[in-house]
């Protein structure tokens, strides 16, 4: 890197003065690479890409960006599905992947201090031998970072019983958009003041950059039971999910996969999923031994009464891992069916699942699209995957139209726009479907308090009429064109 010339761009030169030339990338290839995230949205335009390694360096980068009138977009692994990390308007991109140390594990306080670039699964692998784990487990947990989990308030299958990221973060050191550093929350029982920790989590990088995060560590359960129930129809599976909860059982996870995705998964991992079933329900209960066994038995009974054609209980850890590998690789398995997919993320009341699922299939059929469903049924968190070939003329418009109808059907059933992927650019313009002008104005007030100058990840979360003046400064918005 020594041979790299000093940039003539004063912003880049100032960044290099702090981070060194090897941790500031401004070449077209690097900027193009980070113009995208894992969503299907067309890329934005990245400015200089920075790789800080400490709170002080993040602070310096943020201050330099501010003094040059540049926005800042934080980025972890880039696995987000709502376009939250897509840089708009050539902002400075702050990549946290070099801040990837587990700083401290304190079993008395039941916390771990981590840097934002620590990979979710790496943290749990570190904690397991100590008898603990980090509860949020998004499907992308092998790649996604804790900082990204904080930004999106991420979930995962096991948040049914354990809750999403906000329930597992006690404190954060945050570099605010003006370069000030604050600690939000605390390790004590009830930190005083406004819950700005809670307000920050799920802010999608629009409220600042977390540089140190104290996460709660959760004791590993003494017993786990994993069941796979097969049904003739997805409506039956969804109905049983509601009945399990109504019976006073809160499993650790309840995941449904329809026939289309089950067949694809079985071809992929050979877990013994029943490929002739209309849908399968994967249920996991954990906790002390006796209650776990009892709950598993009751769930099997409720399942059979609800039409389950088979109930399989994982015989051991190996079989359990295999069943979960099927669920967690479901999105990858879709590649066997179609070259591209668009994954939606709405939530509806559990009781509305059968009717909304029916509507999802009808919508896809009407638009001439194939859809498969694999989702967190216990939370009512739908994940319809609209499958398509982007080379086929006219497909993209149909995917757009079908997606919007799925959102509308979910909201009409008493649901919400996003259960765990966040708003990003994907659902920013849908926000007025869920919130009134007054509601959005109040969300914007929170954002303004953190970021009065609108420098943090502009163009995300709030639609243009409701966010501070950020939109006007952008060179262009994502076209909503599918990759």
């Amino acid at each position, binding site marked *: 890197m020594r041979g790299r010339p000093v940039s003539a761009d004063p912003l880049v030169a100032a960044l290099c003065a702090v981070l060194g030339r090897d941790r500031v990338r401004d070449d077209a290839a690097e900027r193009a690479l980070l113009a995208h995230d894992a969503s299907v949205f067309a890329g934005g335009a990245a400015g200089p890409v920075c790789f800080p390694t400490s709170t002080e360096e993040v602070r310096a980068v943020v201050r330099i960006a501010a003094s040059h009138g540049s926005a800042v977009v934080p980025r972890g692994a880039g696995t987000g599905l709502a376009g939250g990390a897509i840089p708009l308007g050539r902002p400075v991109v702050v990549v946290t992947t070099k801040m990837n140390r587990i700083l401290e594990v304190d079993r008395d*306080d039941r916390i771990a201090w981590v840097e934002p670039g620590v990979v979710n699964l790496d943290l749990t692998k570190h904690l397991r031998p100590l008898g603990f784990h980090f509860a949020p487990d998004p499907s992308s947990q092998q790649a996604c970072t804790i900082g990204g989990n904080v930004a*999106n*308030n991420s979930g995962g299958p096991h*948040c049914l019983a354990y809750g*999403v990221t*906000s329930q597992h973060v006690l*404190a954060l050191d*945050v570099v*605010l958009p003006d370069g000030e*550093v*604050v*600690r*939000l929350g*605390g*390790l*004590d*029982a*009830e*930190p*005083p003041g*406004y*819950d700005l920790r*809670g*307000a920050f989590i799920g802010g999608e990088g629009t409220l600042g950059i977390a540089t140190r995060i104290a996460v709660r560590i959760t004791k590993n*359960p003494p017993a786990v039971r994993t069941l796979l129930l097969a049904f003739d129809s997805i409506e039956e599976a969804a109905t049983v999910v*509601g009945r399990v*909860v109504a019976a*006073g*059982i809160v499993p650790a996870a309840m995941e449904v996969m329809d026939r289309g995705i089950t067949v694809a998964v079985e071809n992929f991992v050979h877990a013994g999923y029943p490929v002739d079933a209309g849908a399968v329900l994967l249920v996991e209960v954990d*906790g*002390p031994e006796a*209650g776990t066994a*009892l709950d598993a038995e009751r769930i099997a009974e409720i399942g059979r009464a609800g039409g389950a054609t088979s109930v399989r209980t994982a015989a051991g850890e190996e079989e359990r891992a295999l069943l979960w590998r099927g669920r967690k690789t479901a999105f990858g398995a879709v590649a066997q069916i179609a070259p591209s997919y668009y994954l939606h993320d709405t*939530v*509806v*009341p*559990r*009781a509305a699942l059968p009717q909304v699922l029916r509507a999802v299939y009808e919508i896809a059929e009407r638009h001439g699209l194939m859809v498969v469903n694999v989702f*967190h049924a216990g*939370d*009512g*968190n739908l994940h319809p995957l609209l499958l398509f070939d982007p080379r086929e003329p006219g497909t993209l418009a149909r995917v757009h139209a079908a997606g919007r109808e799925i959102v*509308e059907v979910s909201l*009409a059933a*008493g649901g919400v726009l*996003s259960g765990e992927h966040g708003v990003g650019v994907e*659902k920013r313009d849908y926000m*007025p479907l*869920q*919130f*009134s002008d*007054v*509601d*959005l104005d*109040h*969300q914007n*007030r*929170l954002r303004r*308090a953190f970021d*009065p100058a609108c420098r943090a990840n502009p163009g995300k979360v709030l639609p243009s009429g409701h966010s501070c003046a950020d939109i006007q400064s952008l060179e262009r918005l994502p076209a909503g064109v599918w990759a």
Partner: protein
Amino acid sequence: MTAPAPDGALVRFAREVGATGPVAVEGGRTRWDTGGDPAAGTRLLRAPAGIVEHRPEEMTVRVRAGTAVDELHDELAATGQRTALPRRGGTVGGALAVGENDVCVLGRGRVRDAVLQVRYVSADGVVVTGGGPTVKNVTGYDLPRLLVGSLGTLGLLAEAILRTNPVPAVSRWFRAEGAVPFKAFDALFRPSAVLWNGCTTWVELEGHAADVEAERRALVAATAVAGGWSECDAGPVLPPYRWSLRPSELRRLHEAAPGGPGAAGGAGGPGEAGEAGGHGASIGEPSGLGELVASIGVGTVFSSRPAPPRPPSPALAALAARVKHEFDPGGRLNPGRSVDPAGSVSPR
């Protein structure tokens, strides 16, 4: 397709709040002194009351802020459910505005984790909705968490949707003299409470009967106390003030207790405030706590003495002030009351 419009009761409440003049809401006055009294001349209102909709199969309840917490718990109990709100009198709105957790928070969950949606009346007298009705939701900024514990200084709570949970099949309290409470806590998978007053330890175990019994046996084996563990009806009577400590700080309390392992040397020491500016978290000398009941694994200490002030760092104070200014630019909501008063305590 936005959330259903506020009903008549909420609209009337918003009209009462209006857009001018200092205003506050009174509930059961069980925590009235928290954050200081409202300034003289503040108009006091009551929030609308009533349980709007309990959906046991969704594990949610929509309840108006003026509803008594006891009434809510009675309604939920009829279907075998409960919420995280501490059952000690007062109203739902008051409990949310103060945000204190139940003494058995390990079993019942934290109050702020239970709030799915809030409806509040803003400083300019309109009803605002934050959050959503479903048990999982990350749509937009988390206004419900911001409102919990805000003492009515950002908006006046009118209605909330709360997450409910099944009441466990069995709940049993046990007590023992001279047990090391940390050994009890470490031996148990998921106790609902482990409380310690300097000599006696109380434990609440909940769940399926066989699991509770197995946990009880684990408790006995891990602590090996001379007099053994006896079952009791309830936990201890709690002293009136709350101190917020780190769970690990309670070990120092234990070491400093009469007869404790470090009694001669005393304890105390620095808190966790790191390089970033947060609240000064050092609580000072444990000996200042007086009569106490400590919640092991949580960090709350119920004390006969008020906790010392914990002023926020200048940067955090500035951020909090900007939040307050954005939501209540004229300072008309609960004037005189602050989430960062001289201390973080409130008489119980």
